[in-house]
């Protein structure tokens, strides 16, 4: 039965390929095929997951090897997949949320003549993402890793006629490639070190490899994770990636792909457990990104970018949790799943709003939409409650656990996480107010309206999940479920009892909400974004995404451009110039040497006579010497 897990990948992949090849004839029903494929994959996933639960705890890691991918010298890679507790959860998340988003896209992309291709790309993404999480070998994981990168590239740049979209797509791919250096080098190191990149083998060998190796591995993997999960310092691509169609932002840049980095860290727990330094690095990255993302989220007026900022910060939470080691892995995954629910929900909601507002993303042009699009408002609201962590919604449970674990690690880390929670509440409230509450600010030629059913049903589904996602924690189910994979989380006592901490957290959240209300409820909101000069330094920094792009520009892009220009010049003038210069010298020499050929026989005779003399002298010289 588990041998069929390759079908999880094969079905969407085949459908994607089919849609690409089939051509225009399939425009009418292509989207249905795509959705069906995703759904079928989901069903199979559920079946397999149930089977997995059926197995006893020892046999819940099911590995299959399809064929030998590469075998040469000492280098051997099996095209192998592992379905275990961890990947099982991801399969459900990816195919489930994925299917919902497919359905949603049927409506959202309804008017796009290239809808068929859109669904093909979505299918390919699902296949690649499943490869990523099911991989039993780091190189196979890398295959999926790059696969999702490709899908993300294609989907961000789906509206290629928009230069901004094309640029954003390229940026996303290139920045990810920077992270991939880390991945690639990590895998090479595994080969040099362990002679294999099979995850199981590496896990088994990592503890014995020595601190330096595991640290190196950990940091390299972290670099890869930063690229994929838009963590500082490789965060800059995510906000530009919002150029893509909103379902893409929901599926790839909120729910699934961007969390791959977290998955990688959790999956490589053996390595990170073995290296204190690597773990600390993960925590730092997570914490910094958490706050940076939140900060950006506060300042953006573009609804999708605000959400993107929040995504960054939420993934920061997951990273942070993953960095905490066995204590946090389970919660990282837990938050990842819940976040998958509510963030996908909110993105789709945003999409629904844009759908009603003629694809306007400027929140300052919204306002009071709750009446216009009630379902969207309701579902979005649930998501809102979930993300800011209001009991008993999904986000509350997961985030609460993470902050708790953070305090368990270190007071300052805990405080940072706590602050993040407050800021999250602030900017999400701000977003709610600007969009749904407050007074209407849209122009009269805009006629906001609720989206069609095909779009609202997925919203409802995801909203429901956001509401009840917390049940996974019921009786610590998730921690126990994941324990065989990520190891046992020894529960350490906090200075204050957990319940007190929970209350504190909730209080901070409410504080954030109140602050936002106070700030945005009183005076009427400007329909246009205030000029940079008129806003506080913090807002300005946030709007410029904390100047991440400027930093990249000055530190990387511009030097590279100059270097390239210089090298082009060097190649032409220097290297090639040298060669061609030789040719010219040759011509000159030739002209010079033909001068003696004067045509005067006497001068010829003279040369000969001189030659005679020289030859005689040479011979004498040689003998005397």
């Amino acid at each position: 039965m588990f041998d069929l897990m390759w079908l999880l990948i094969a079905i969407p992949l085949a459908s994607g390929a089919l849609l690409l090849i089939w051509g225009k004839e399939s425009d009418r029903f292509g989207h249905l095929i795509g959705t069906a494929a995703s759904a079928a994959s989901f069903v199979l996933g559920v079946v397999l997951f149930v089977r997995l639960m059926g197995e006893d705890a020892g046999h819940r890691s099911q590995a299959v090897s399809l064929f030998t991918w590469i075998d040469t010298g000492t280098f051997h890679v099996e095209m192998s997949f592992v379905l275990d507790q961890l990947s099982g959860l991801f399969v459900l998340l990816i195919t489930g949320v994925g299917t919902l988003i497919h359905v949603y896209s049927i409506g959202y992309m309804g008017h796009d003549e290239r809808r068929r291709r859109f669904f093909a790309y979505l299918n390919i993404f699902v296949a690649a993402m499943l490869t990523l999480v099911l991989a039993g070998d780091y190189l196979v994981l890398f295959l999926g890793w790059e696969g999702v990168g490709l899908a993300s590239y294609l989907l961000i740049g789906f509206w290629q006629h928009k230069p901004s979209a094309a640029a954003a797509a390229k940026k996303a791919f290139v920045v990810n490639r920077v992270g991939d250096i880390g991945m690639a080098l990590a895998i090479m190191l595994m080969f040099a070190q362990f002679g294999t990149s099979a995850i199981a083998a590496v896990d088994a060998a990592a503890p014995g490899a020595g601190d330096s190796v595991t640290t190196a591995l950990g940091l390299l993997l972290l670099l890869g994770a930063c690229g994929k999960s838009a963590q500082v310092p490789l965060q800059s691509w995510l906000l530009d990636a919002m150029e893509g169609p909103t379902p893409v932002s929901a599926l790839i840049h909120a729910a699934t792909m961007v969390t791959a980095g977290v998955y990688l860290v959790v999956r490589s727990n053996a390595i990170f457990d073995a290296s204190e330094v690597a773990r600390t690095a993960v925590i730092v990255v997570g914490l910094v990104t958490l706050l940076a993302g939140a900060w950006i989220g506060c300042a953006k007026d573009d609804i999708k970018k605000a959400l993107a900022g929040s995504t960054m910060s939420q993934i920061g939470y997951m990273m942070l949790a993953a960095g905490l080691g066995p204590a946090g892995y389970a919660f990282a995954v837990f938050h990842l799943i819940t976040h998958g629910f509510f963030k996908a929900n909110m993105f789709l909601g945003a999409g629904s709003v844009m759908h009603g507002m003629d694809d306007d993303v400027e929140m300052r042009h919204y306002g009071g939409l709750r009446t216009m699009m009630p379902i969207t408002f309701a579902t979005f609201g649930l998501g809102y409650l979930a993300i800011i962590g209001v009991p008993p919604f999904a986000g509350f449970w997961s985030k609460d656990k993470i902050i708790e674990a953070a305090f368990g690690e270190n007071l300052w880390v805990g405080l940072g996480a706590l602050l993040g929670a407050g800021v999250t509440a602030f900017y999400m409230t701000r977003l709610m107010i600007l969009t749904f509450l407050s007074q209407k600010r849209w122009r009269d030629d805009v006629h906001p309206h609720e989206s069609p059913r095909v779009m609202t049903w997925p919203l409802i589904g995801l909203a429901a999940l956001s509401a009840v996602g917390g049940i996974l924690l019921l009786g610590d189910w998730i921690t126990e479920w994941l324990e065989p994979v990520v190891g046992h989380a020894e529960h350490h006592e906090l200075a204050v009892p957990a319940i007190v901490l929970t209350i504190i957290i909730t209080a901070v959240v409410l504080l954030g909400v109140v602050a936002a209300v106070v700030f945005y409820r009183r005076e009427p909101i400007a329909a246009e974004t205030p000029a940079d000069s008129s806003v506080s330094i913090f807002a300005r920094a946030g709007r410029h995404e904390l100047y991440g792009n400027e930093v990249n520009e000055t530190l990387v892009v511009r030097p590279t451009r100059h270097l390239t220009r210089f090298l082009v010049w060097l190649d032409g003038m220097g290297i090639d110039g040298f060669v061609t210069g030789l040719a010219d010298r040759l011509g000159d020499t030739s002209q010079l040497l033909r001068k003696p050929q004067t045509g005067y026989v006497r001068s010829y005779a003279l040369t000969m006579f001189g030659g005679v003399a020289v030859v005689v002298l040479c011979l004498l010289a040689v003998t005397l010497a």
Partner: protein
Amino acid sequence: MITTFISAELPPIDAPTIEYSLLGPLFIVTGVAVLGVLVEAFWPRASRFVVQAVLAVVGIVAALADTVWVYTDLDRIDAPLQARGQVAGEGALTVDGPGVFTWGILLVFGLMSMLLFAERRLEGGLSAFTGRAADAPGSSAEAQAVQLRVEHTEVFPLALFALVGMMLFATSNDLLTMFVALEVLSLPLYLLCALARRRRLLSQEAALKYFLLGAFSSVFFLYGIALAYGYSGSFELSAIDTAVTNRTGGENMLLASIALMAVGLLFKIGAAPFHTWTPDVYQGAPTPVTAFMAAGTKAAAFLALLRVFYVGFGGSQWDWRPTIVAIAIITMFLGAVVSISQTDVKRMLAYSSIAHAGFLLVGFVGVYAGVAGSDRITSVSSVLFYLAVYGLSSIGAFAVVTLVRDSGGETTHLSKWAGLGRTSPLLAGSFAIFMLSFAGIPLTGGFIGKWGVFSAAYAGGFWWLVVIGVMISALAAYFYVRVIVLMFFTDPVGDGPTVAVPSVLTTVVIVVAVVGTVGLGIIPGPVLDLAQHAGAFVR
């Protein structure tokens, strides 16, 4: 009564022993040449040209056949080095492997040149030679001569005498014979150079230069001989060799004689700095004569060079090798570089012949005699093969030159050759093949030849000279490929030259040259083995 009385007085004279069978080819060619003179004297003018041509061709073919026969039953000598042949004609000649091989290629070159000489289609039924050399250029007499269709049919006997001289030069065993041979080969060529039908001023000037410089150089050669004689008391190479090895006599006199003889011979092969005559003469002379000179003189002179320096002065090779190395490098470089800036095809070919003289010298200085028992490339065999290939290619190239014409005769200015590959691909293609062979590109004979001389030099311990050689041949290639660029990659100029349709004679020559060049590149085995089995010189 009286006879008995006389015979009682004087001892009987024992006639010199001449190996007629061995020297057959020489006698045949000489005889035919003399016959040609008689024909000149007695045969009616109307059909004389044809008769002379046929006579020459037949004679050479016969000589060639005889050469083959001679070559096959040269008796072998195994010590000290593998060699074949013997000293003949009372020590005046050495009929040995290399010599007879050279006879062979000389005769082949001669044959091809005769065919070019006999070509009459291009000048409207007249040969490439002036009607009456005595007439002033552009004079009414000249025009009249053209009307009367008078022709210098002496060119054939002259060429044959030159051929005899070359063959003698290649096989002479004593210096006096060598000098005589040198003159016998030179004097007719001086005359032939002066006989061009078109551009007669240039032709005469070329002849004058060739004559004066040639005489000048041969005087040095002669003085060298005198010194050698003074050093060793004999003209025979073997005697000189013993003298040199025993170091009898004054060292400086020996060196001086080496130097002076070297000058004479290097002049003939056109090595720097004694090359100055080459471009002018090659350009001015009638193209068939140029072909004959380029191929024949070089081959004969090189054999003489090898013979003198290996057999005669082999004992003091450590004295002369460094100088020859220097000369080789200068010659290669100069020939290759100057040819780049040439605009006239014939001059360009002249410079390329200079460069090739340099490459031949590289093989020569190797002085590598191989080891007994193994058939490895020796200096001698490599040079022989190179001469064969180079001769074929250059005769072919000059034959092509005779066909590219406009109203004023041959158009040798390179710019006129632009786009030739478009208008007449076959002709340009064969010229390109010769160029590639000169450049030493694989699958042409030139490549095998280069390989040979380089390996000889390498085996002789001059690997660095080989490196210099390959670098310079890259320079040379730069020019040859530019010619191809001109012919194939450039669009034809407005009033391009017309490619005259030759008679079967020239066609045969070109075809043979192409086949030979390519064939020697792909299956050089037979000719190479022939050169191998020629063995060393007989002393």
